């Protein structure tokens, strides 16, 4: 079925994933579970990436930089035609929120697993989105028009009162966004936001928004089918961010009760209906300390943090996306959606929490995933994989489920300890530190917490310097001995190294 607003739904049996990394793996797994054949695309850097090895077919689409491979619409469509893929799932990032890509798919008779092009377009323009949802009765954060010049924005900020937020019209994921607390910092912030937005999105138009302080970032997951049914799958708490990058997400939220959930859910559904939304989408809200909530933006795609919702609702969101794109009706009504238990996700990034969170590149030498009850890991890396500067720094998502928030937190603590990654620095120590913190345990945090009131220096856990010193010394000692044994081959050490010799005997 093809609609005027740029939506095509139809049964399909072969799907192209226009993405890489953990989200490509996530989509591949959902497809394989539904018996859908899969087509992967890859850049030079990704020849050995898991999504290439895991798909049924794989096609090379160019050099490592995304703008020469994953972002080139023509190359993606070309592979779709060559391979006979009848549908494309864009994942998140890359082409996921480019309305022209969704439209190009439909124009070529390919199902785009996502919303109609028109809905992407409207929600992708921050200003048009604000106007559209406001007209549908959705509360929004006060702010300026876009396209003002710097002087006009500086004047508007003075009227609005600080703090304010500089935001790129084309922005997303924290890029092209700057909080400003003092008037004198505004010119620099506008310049930085414009620069970042131009580099990331090729568009430097920015606008101002009143900054809601002590606010939480709460988002509502939606599912909408092509038959007019829209439901909400409860909320996610995503307040723990650094530079507008989410770091830890959970579902449900500590501060959202059944009544607030229903009210936010219904407003979110109204916002989606305002653009005739279809497929999975998320309405992001700011929730202030008096429990007022304001529309922030709509993400017209699958979110990184969708697994926490999957764990507390039991609904496989990616499988639902595929069913919706095939034109099916939702299998659930709002009453069928029940929140059970608690789920927390930590984003494991290649970055150094002890050195200003600088990204870390290199080859992953060890990757041992935590497992056991209540632990899920979504990842696209493996030992031998190189973290390159071409793509983002996320290594994996570690997701833990428990009957209660306490159980989920304790399980996360256990899983973080079990996780072994070597070769690059990771932010696992950040997460360990966070899940031990009093404020996290008691749910007392807002979107500014990580940046303003959290420091890796207030270490509370035990450290292992002595053990590290002993282990390194023993490893060095053994290496030295083995080197000398190789020199003096034949003069083999026959002393009573009880376990070692047993161990070596076992290995034969």
């Amino acid at each position, binding site marked *: 079925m093809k609609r005027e607003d740029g939506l095509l739904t139809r049964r399909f049996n072969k799907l192209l994933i226009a993405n890489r990394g953990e989200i490509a793996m996530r989509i591949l797994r959902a497809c394989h579970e539904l018996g859908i054949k899969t087509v992967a695309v890859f850049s030079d850097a990704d020849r050995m990436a898991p999504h290439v090895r895991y798909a049924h077919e794989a096609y090379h689409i160019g050099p490592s930089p995304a703008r020469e491979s994953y972002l080139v619409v023509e190359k993606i469509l070309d592979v779709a035609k060559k391979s006979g893929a009848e549908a494309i799932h864009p994942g998140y990032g890359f082409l996921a929120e480019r309305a022209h890509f969704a439209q190009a798919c439909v124009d070529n008779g390919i199902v785009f697993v996502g919303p109609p092009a028109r809905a992407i377009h409207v929600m992708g323009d921050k200003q048009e989105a604000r106007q559209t949802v406001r007209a549908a009765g959705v509360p929004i954060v006060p702010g300026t028009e876009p396209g003002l010049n710097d002087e006009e924005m500086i004047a508007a900020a003075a009227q609005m009162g600080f703090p304010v937020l500089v935001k790129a019209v084309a922005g997303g994921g924290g*890029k092209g966004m700057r909080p400003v607390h003092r008037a004198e910092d505004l010119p620099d912030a506008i310049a*930085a936001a414009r*620069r*970042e937005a131009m*580099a*990331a999105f090729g568009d430097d138009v920015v606008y101002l928004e009143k900054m809601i302080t002590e606010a939480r970032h709460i988002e509502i997951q939606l599912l909408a089918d092509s038959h007019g049914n829209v439901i909400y799958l409860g909320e996610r708490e995503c307040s723990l961010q650094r*530079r507008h990058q989410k770091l830890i997400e959970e579902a449900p939220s500590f501060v959202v009760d059944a009544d607030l959930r229903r009210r936010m859910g219904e407003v979110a559904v109204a916002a989606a209906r305002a653009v005739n939304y279809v497929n999975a989408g998320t309405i992001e809200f700011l929730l202030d300390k008096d429990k007022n909530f304001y529309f922030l933006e709509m993400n017209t795609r699958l979110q990184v943090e969708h697994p926490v919702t999957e764990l507390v609702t039991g609904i496989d969101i990616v499988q639902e996306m595929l069913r919706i794109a095939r034109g099916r009706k939702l299998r659930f009504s709002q009453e069928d959606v029940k929140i059970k238990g608690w789920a927390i996700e930590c984003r494991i990034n290649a970055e*150094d929490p002890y*050195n*200003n969170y*600088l*990204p*870390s*590149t290199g080859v992953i*030498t*060890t990757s041992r995933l935590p497992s056991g009850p209540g632990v899920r890991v979504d990842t696209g890396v493996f030992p031998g994989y190189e973290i390159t*500067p071409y*793509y*983002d*720094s996320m290594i994996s998502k570690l997701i833990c489920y428990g009957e209660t928030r306490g159980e989920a937190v304790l399980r996360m603590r256990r899983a*973080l*300890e079990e*996780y*072994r*990654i*070597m*070769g690059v*620095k990771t932010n*696992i*120590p950040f997460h*360990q530190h966070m899940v031990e913190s009093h404020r996290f345990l008691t749910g007392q945090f807002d979107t500014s917490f990580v940046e303003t009131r959290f420091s890796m220096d207030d270490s509370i856990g035990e*450290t*292992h*310097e*002595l*053990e*590290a*010193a*002993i*282990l*390194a*010394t*023993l*490893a*060095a*000692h*053994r*290496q*030295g001995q083995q080197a000398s044994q190789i020199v003096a081959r034949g003069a083999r050490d026959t*002393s*009573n*190294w*009880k*376990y*070692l010799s047993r*161990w070596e005997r076992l*290995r034969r």
Partner: protein
Amino acid sequence: MKYYTSVNNQEYEIEIHHERELVVNGERYEIDFQKLPDAGLASLLLRNRSVEAVIEERDGFWEVLIHGQLYTVQVQDERAYRLAQARGTAVADGAGDVHAPMPGIIIAVSVKVGDHVKQGDKVAILESMKMENELRAPRDGVVTHVNVHPGSSVEKNAVIVVIESQS
């Protein structure tokens, strides 16, 4: 064998007596150390306390991962230690270098030669992995070299700014 081992500014004198015993700063420990061949996985029983680690040698240092925490350890045997002592106790050269942690493009440089900086001061912004990353001074001192300008494209580990200690 005696070793001088340092980690996080703490130094340990470690004497390995035999397979099952060592002495750290004069204190005797019963140990059982095992390491898988061809893999960094190691297990230490320290007075029956179990410590699992992944150990890898990198650039002359030992990286030890314990319970999610990564320790960078320097191990010197007596000879290497004496040699280092003879060369003076100063920190190794390069401690004041600001390196590019990954390839990228310099967006801004906020210091010039002759500037006094404090440890943690911002010295430059590097764009990489789709983000702007602030590079900071590793110690107090005076800027003696600035090797980049906005727009410079840098390789991983390139020295961007050099800060000399004045002590």
